[in-house]
């Protein structure tokens, strides 16, 4: 069998009904604030764009620094700053129009601070008709008034999912946290409650880094979620555990920097692959670069589409 032609390699994917021209997605919170920038990211090669997580009301977030490169990746406590659902609805509508000719879908990320609130915001954001809704129940930097993340308790995670599903007809991805003992158990709960797909992982931790000279945390908020190369093994393991536990598509996020990392995620079963911190390390052009590297791998292995190798990792002892 000869070599597969480079341009015949199909790296498209279908994520909960949305067709992505390629399997890369920009992760929520990275450049997803305004429609012009989201369109720029799509033009730079992303197969789908995700908005910054949006709440009912505008939030200024925490003071700076909100995100820093600490050597192993980023640490962030942005405080979920966003202009609120009203503005975000306009941004999504504007983006949709410009993304349509590119064939690039838009994922609206939402969050709230109560179970009911999630239902509300889902209803509002649906007016903008995003292709998918991503339900962020897993921000590690929530206010300490909330004892736990929503993503830490299977029952609560399921309830959030149910309320969102009741308030929208758009397929939903529920975004999970690695900061739990069994992410598979949470995945089972949200799928049972109706989640169409799962996004994993959100940032890890939180972690904490001090400036030892002033004895202050380097982030204004103190602790912050960890992302980037340092979390990749954790993310791969989470995605593998989720794909084994449930039967819905998984948008795999966490530490993906290269085509190699995309392949790794697909081998453990991912349907599409999110990139956040990678934009910092390789620029907005990361999407195009990663797709090229992915195609190189597929050509070498004579795979014609992602289905040819999705979920084929050998897992000895799991």
């Amino acid at each position: 069998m000869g070599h597969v032609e480079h341009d015949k390699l199909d790296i498209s994917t279908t994520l909960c009904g949305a067709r992505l021209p390629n399997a890369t997605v920009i992760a929520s919170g990275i450049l997803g604030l305004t429609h012009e920038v989201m369109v720029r990211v799509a033009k730079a090669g992303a197969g789908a764009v995700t908005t910054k997580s949006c709440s009912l009301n505008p939030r200024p977030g925490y003071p700076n620094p909100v995100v820093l490169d600490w050597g192993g990746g980023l640490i962030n406590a942005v405080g979920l700053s966003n202009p609120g659902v009203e503005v975000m609805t306009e941004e999504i509508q504007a983006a949709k129009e410009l993304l349509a000719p590119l064939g690039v879908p838009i994922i609206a990320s939402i969050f709230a601070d109560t179970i009911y609130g999630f239902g509300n915001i889902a209803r509002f954001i649906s007016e903008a008709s995003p292709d998918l809704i991503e339900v962020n129940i897993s921000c590690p930097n929530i206010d300490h008034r909330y004892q736990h993340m929503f993503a830490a308790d299977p029952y609560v995670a399921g309830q959030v999912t149910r309320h969102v599903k009741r308030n929208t007809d758009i397929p939903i991805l529920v975004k999970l946290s690695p900061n739990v003992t069994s992410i598979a158990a949470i995945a089972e709960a949200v799928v049972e409650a109706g989640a169409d797909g799962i996004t994993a992982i959100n940032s890890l931790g939180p972690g904490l880094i001090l400036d030892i000279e002033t004895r202050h945390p380097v982030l204004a908020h103190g602790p912050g979620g960890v992302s980037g190369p340092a979390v990749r093994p954790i993310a791969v393991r989470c995605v593998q555990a989720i794909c084994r536990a449930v039967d819905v598509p998984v948008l795999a996020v966490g530490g993906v920097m290269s085509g190699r990392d995309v392949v790794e995620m697909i081998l453990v079963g991912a349907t599409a692959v999110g990139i956040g911190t990678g934009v910092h390390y390789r620029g907005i052009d990361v999407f195009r670069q990663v797709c090229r590297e992915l195609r190189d791998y597929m050509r070498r292995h004579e795979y014609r589409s992602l289905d040819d190798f999705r979920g084929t990792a050998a897992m000895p002892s799991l």
Partner: protein
Amino acid sequence: MSLPETVRITEIRRETRSISTFVLDAEIAQSEPGQFIMLWLPGLDEKPMSIACPSPLSVVVDRVGPFTMALHERRVGSLVGWRGPYGRGFRLAEEGPALLVSGGCGVGPMVYLAARASEQGIPTTVALGARSTAALPCASEFQALGANLVLATDDGSDGYHGYVTDAVRELGLIDARPTVYACGPEPMLVAVHRLCLEARIGGQISVERYMKCGFGICGQCALDGLLVCQDGPVFDVQELDGVRDFGHAHRSATGRRLPLR
């Protein structure tokens, strides 16, 4: 890696009633005029500040709100953090003279740019605008660098009476077809932009937008599809042509689009 490095303030020079130069015990190995650092006051906040001098690292800061006020209360010996340099700076044209147009606290990067121009033997005019004589910062620095200094004050207390951009136009400062470098309040930048396009001369304009990360990740500093922290803060006049928000809208900390001023 972009963790802030904490260093001591080694010198504070008062420039005007509200503007001071802060010299830090740090050096930036490689930077361009127009690039900025993120200046951190531990426990408080962190804000973008243009590099006024890379070695020793200095910034010229106008007291306008909580952060800059807190900085002005710091003394020599206080610890502050910095990270950077970030962004794209001015690219000095090799041909022809340079005209630096500066208003308000836009003076920091201009001091650095004038120094660079002087090093490269580029004939330089600095047009400096302020409310009044007392608010004109760093004038002596520019003179020491051998620049031709043109002052403009809103109240006429020194130099040209009126806006600095009007001074540029009326005093014929673009007759020699200089490359124009501008930094200051956005209305001034819009005027410079128009001037350059009309006169068909080269121009580079440093724009400010609300910043969080400073390195192209958060999307907060969006100016239409441009990221000011990474694509800018310095843009060619041409790049700003047709940019909807330029002169019209900026974004708050929430990301909400607000009319300028």
